[in-house]
């Protein structure tokens, strides 16, 4: 369903001409058919095409474009690769979309200081690829890392499997160049570990594009661990697997990653990739230890023993780097594999205290039954960060609504267990309505004050993150047409 053609355009020929003069004719898209690609990100429940898509190459161009918008009071939304899962790049009352895909240059690699300077449109995996040969890596590794951009990661404060040990995006961003909504270019933070004054870098990372457009980032790099041990442990059910997770972490060392897949996901992945997952298992854990080769066998052995004590029927070590890579490929493509099971799916991103994992998984399976929808689970178990994948068929409006409601019910359960609405996907357009479950009106007021420091007129990615008091935040109809 496309944007309502009858809605009044807020951008005119003059603006289009001004923007084209700044970024060049090939940097502007304004034809309805071409804009269709940008009607949604990874959150496909809602769609809305922008009126103009701009693809600048430099901060100066971004600044010029934002100044033109500022003079006209027009709102905008930044977009990286559009892999986000919460509708962060969905234009909601933002006629102009600023896409960073052409700002894809790695500007400087500084291995001695373990820093790298990149434009914000650089793809996540390209950062690690650029420094791998020198023995470094960039830690945040979302499942979409072959496509997602650093700018998008910064907006959402993205994570990934290995953030259990190494932290999320905010732990690895030292400096930012930000174009404010009025077009001013500001430099925040820098190459040093200590900041000067308020930690504005920390405020911008995770602000979901509501502070302006990030155009450049200084990132910290980590040394590749000397060695790794990756274990695949099969359990009769999700309950025993998640109990093992807490026990492994409590045993005294933080593994590089602990991921879980349940039966539905195991089967989907196995059908798609044939990696040799045990299809009779109720759940599997992928547990990875990294560090000095010297201590790893002992660590892996201890984890295997803990898994066994918690009911694991089989545990095996990846015997080669190729086998390890295959396991991770399977894990990271699990979402794609699920696409074979149903016409549509929606992924949630709740968090619970790790020890509540067995409880939330039971709750998810109860929700699945109540709503008559299959739900698979593939997630960052070590962090307590669940990703229930709710399968549905969009041709059946009843199913769409049930999928939305089921997702909300799971999130409410997470919050009730002392958890959170989102661990790494962001609030976006998707979960604004649930924010009051987590935060008081005063909390939200203070957050809005922080946002206004950067964007007093709320023109940078408007109608996101913080619900407007009194505004209707319910999705009125499935796949609603969002007013641009």
């Amino acid at each position, binding site marked *: 369903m496309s944007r309502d053609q009858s809605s009044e355009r807020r951008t005119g020929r003059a603006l289009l001409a001004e923007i084209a003069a700044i970024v060049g004719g090939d940097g502007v898209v304004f034809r309805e058919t071409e804009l269709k690609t940008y009607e949604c990100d990874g959150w496909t429940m809602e769609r809305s095409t922008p009126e103009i898509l701009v693809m600048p190459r430099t901060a100066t161009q971004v600044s010029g474009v934002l100044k033109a918008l500022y003079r006209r009071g027009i709102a905008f939304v930044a977009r990286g690769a559009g892999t986000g899962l919460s509708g962060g790049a969905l234009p909601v009352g933002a006629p102009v979309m600023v896409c960073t895909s052409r700002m894809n240059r790695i500007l400087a690699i*500084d291995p001695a*200081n373990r820093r790298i300077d990149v434009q914000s449109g650089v793809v996540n995996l390209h950062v690690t690829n650029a420094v791998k040969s020198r023995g470094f890596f960039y830690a945040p590794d979302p499942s979409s890392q072959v496509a997602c951009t650093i700018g998008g990661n910064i907006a959402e*404060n993205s994570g990934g499997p290995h*953030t259990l040990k190494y932290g*999320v995006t*905010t*732990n690895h961003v030292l400096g930012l160049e930000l174009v404010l909504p009025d077009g001013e270019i*500001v*430099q*925040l933070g*820098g*190459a*040093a*570990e*200590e900041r*000067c*004054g*308020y*930690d*504005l*870098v*920390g*405020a911008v*990372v*995770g602000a979901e594009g509501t502070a302006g457009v990030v155009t450049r980032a200084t990132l910290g790099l980590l040394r590749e661990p000397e060695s790794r041990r990756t274990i695949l442990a099969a359990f009769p059910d999700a309950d025993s697997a998640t109990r093992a997770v807490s026990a492994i*972490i*409590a045993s*005294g*060392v*933080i593994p590089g990653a602990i991921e879980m897949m349940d039966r539905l996901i195991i089967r989907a992945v196995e059908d798609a990739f044939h990696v040799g997952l045990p299809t009779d298992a109720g759940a599997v854990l992928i547990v990875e230890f990294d*560090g*000095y080769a*010297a*201590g790893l066998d*002992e*660590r892996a052995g201890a984890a295997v023993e803990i898994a066994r004590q918690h009911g694991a029927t089989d545990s095996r070590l990846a015997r080669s780097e190729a086998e390890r890579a295959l396991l991770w490929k399977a894990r990271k493509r699990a979402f794609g594999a699920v696409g074979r099971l149903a016409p549509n799916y929606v992924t949630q991103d709740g*968090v*619970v*205290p790790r*020890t509540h994992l067995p409880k939330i998984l039971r709750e998810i399976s109860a929700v699945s039954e109540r709503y008559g929808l299959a739900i698979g689970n593939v997630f960052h178990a070590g*962090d*307590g960060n669940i990703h229930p994948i709710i399968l549905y068929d969009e041709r059946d409006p009843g199913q769409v609504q049930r999928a939305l409601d089921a997702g909300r019910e799971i999130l409410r359960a997470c919050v009730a267990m*002392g*958890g*959170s609405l*989102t*661990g790494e*996907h962001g609030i976006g357009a998707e979960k604004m309505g649930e*924010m009051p479950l987590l*935060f*008081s009106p005063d*909390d*939200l007021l*203070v*957050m809005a*004050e*922080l*946002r206004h*420091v*950067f964007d007093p007129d709320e023109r940078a990615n408007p109608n996101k993150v913080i619900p407007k008091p009194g505004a209707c935040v319910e999705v009125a109809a499935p796949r609603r047409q969002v007013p641009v």
Partner: protein
Amino acid sequence: MSSGHMAGVGTDREHLLREIERLIGAGRAREPMSLETAACEIVVEPETVEEIAEAVRKCETDKITLAPLGSARTLSQIRKTPVALGVSLARMRRVIAYEPDDMTIVLEAGSTLGEVNRLAAQHRQRLPVDPREPERTTIGAMVGAAHAGPARLSEGTVRDLLIGVGFVGHGGRLARAGGRVVKNVAGYDLMKVMTGSFGTLGIAVEAAFKVRPIPEDYTLAVRKFGRHNEVFEAAAALNTALSLVHLEMLSPGPSAALGYDYDWVLMAGFAGNRAEMDYQSAKIHEVLGSEARLLKGADADAAFASLRDMEFPAEGLVAQIAVRPVELLRCVRDCSGEYRAHAGSGVAQIWLEEVGEGTAQQTVSRWRELAHVCGGNLRVLQAPETMRGEIEFFDRPSAGAFGLMKRLKQAFDPAGIFNPGCFVGGL
């Protein structure tokens, strides 16, 4: 001049004391003691968030300045004149929730890091921030002043471990952000905003942290060097070869003060299981030679504690420099003072034992210029009492960043009462 009060408003001290007692109860206000006298005129010790909110509202209405107060070590340095009201959280030191299996802890901000870590140690866990004198470091001060120590190399700093925060801001509003789970991106990250805000945005009342396991074993390798650049070269080699817990370098002054020879000293800590310890010990000897002394068990713990708690000279000019890590060598050399440097992090505390009258700010400016050239900044930690007035304690951010900081301060503290006038650019 009783300049803790805003100009033109004539609330006198006795009157304020009585007002505060009336507002939040008798016996909650007291005279400042020792270091506190340089920080505030009256100390108030509330027992609840609501009492803090009352005090904040009162101060806003009457334009009375206030600041959160731990042991006053930082505030007594950076304040040119005392604030009227120091808000001590000495009576708010409860552990709100500690979930060892989830490895999270929620604390009232008056708790000290020392008592928190004694509790966590019962579960072989710790909050791995290691500023000086943990028994005197309150959680509120640790967050507010972004205190850190040697373990920043392996564990990060407060900003990496703080997962939730609650503070009383303008209007006496209690605002919370984050939560109690280790991974969470719901809402704006006020944890980062509060960390290192030096009490200028509100009074932090509670904080939630990730805790970490205490490693199975810990060894401290000590090796002295006859030359300044040798210790840096050795540190760089070690930092490439190993993932250390900490990697500290001391100039001869502090090294002698800690009981080592008057030489440059490298102190590298490493941890792990038995196989990892054997491997690292061998590697340390390979890089540092047989002269490296390995301290274990209680000896290692004691040596680390004295390194962590190392005192700066009482009359010294002390600053913390943060630069691109490889440029730290040049910086500390050209600053030509004594130092304790966190190799790998690019951060060092540097100092002069004494400075001539009227030359302190000149020295700070010279150091600061050097920091800027090396991609970083410099913050003064301590200055002789008579010279504090002339010194700019905080470095200047870029013009664009400072513009945003002014707006942030204005938004969070419209009345200008929260520790005003001593943070970056006079905020």
